[in-house]
């Protein structure tokens, strides 16, 4: 038999095992990378009552929560570009945030106690709007104007709306608790039905209106 054929045949007996063995090697590589401080962003895709969520955490804390309406490729690419390409699937890194989300959807947690990383929000007004929003208690709602006021610019309701629309950490930074003063649930970056669902879950929305 020709040498090339023999060499090619060498791996045949192993090919079936390679997928599994390399997957395990990849997993322990991620663990080693984490302990050496080489994972800048760890992410997990989780299921929730309002669809798939991308949960991403840095060493500082939860940095991004994103509603996924398809595969996470675009969302991951954006994170790689905005935070760091050292982005790896890492259930351990996101564990704390995931547990609290589960508990929230089960009605067992009313206040998130996970550390947050604000890297994706500009310092200044936007950041103050989101911090004010993070302080709105479970089960209550407030208006865009009120949030603007608490962020130090009472007349900037529209700008507050924009900041909320760009909220990188929805649900945990509860922008769904901000509603128009004229009534209704108002807009939501993650689609209005999700906002309704969250407000209903929290008992802040009654009936079918």
């Amino acid at each position: 038999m020709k040498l090339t054929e023999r060499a090619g045949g060498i791996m045949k007996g192993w090919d079936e095992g390679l997928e599994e063995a390399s997957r395990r090697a990849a997993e322990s590589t991620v663990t080693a990378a984490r302990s050496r401080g080489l994972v800048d962003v760890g992410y997990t895709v989780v299921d929730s009552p309002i669809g798939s969520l991308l949960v991403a955490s840095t060493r500082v804390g939860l940095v991004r929560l994103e509603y996924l309406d398809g595969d996470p490729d675009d969302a991951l690419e954006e994170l790689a570009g905005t935070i760091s390409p050292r982005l790896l699937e890492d259930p351990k890194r996101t564990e704390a945030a995931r547990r609290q989300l589960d508990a929230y959807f089960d009605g067992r947690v009313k206040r998130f106690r996970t550390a947050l990383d604000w890297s994706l929000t500009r310092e200044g007004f936007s950041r103050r709007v989101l911090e004010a929003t993070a302080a709105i208690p479970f089960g209550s709602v407030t208006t865009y104007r009120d949030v603007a006021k608490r962020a130090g610019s009472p007349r900037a309701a529209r700008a507050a709306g924009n900041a909320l629309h760009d909220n990188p950490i929805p649900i945990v930074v509860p922008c769904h608790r901000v509603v128009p003063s004229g009534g209704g649930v108002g807009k939501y970056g993650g689609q209005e039905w999700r906002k309704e669902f969250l407000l209903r879950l929290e008992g802040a929305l009654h009936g079918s209106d």
Partner: protein
Amino acid sequence: MNLPPFQRLLDEHRVDVYRFLVASVGRQAADDCFQETFLSALRAYPRLRDASNLRGWLFTIATRKAFDHWRVEGRKPVPVERVPEREAPERADDDPELWRAVGTLPPMQRAAVIHRYVLDLPYADVAQALGITEEAARANTYEGRKRLRSMQEVGA
């Protein structure tokens, strides 16, 4: 420059990198070399300037790890021939004799032969992985093959 998420490199290339390492250093050492390869890559990744051939870049690193391993192991034949006893029943196509022979080649020829014939890479990719010119990749593959053939004849 926009680098893709590192996870994608891991997903897309882990099987082939692992295959190369098993062929190069044997199954026992493949896990360690694999981890070292991807940790080195991850360390350097944010500073990478050219993202046009990430696969080639990974293979360059993996090849370097294989060379390091060979250096440490000296010229011992690769321990690959023990693998079938542990992982799977002996098969005709595992060809331990050929493996032993490959393990005695000088590192450059050994790596060239593995890249070319086990992974079926074109010479351009072999050259990149080894950090040498395409001509040198051809020459090393040729020399390695010649040597293997003469070993087979002596053995026969």
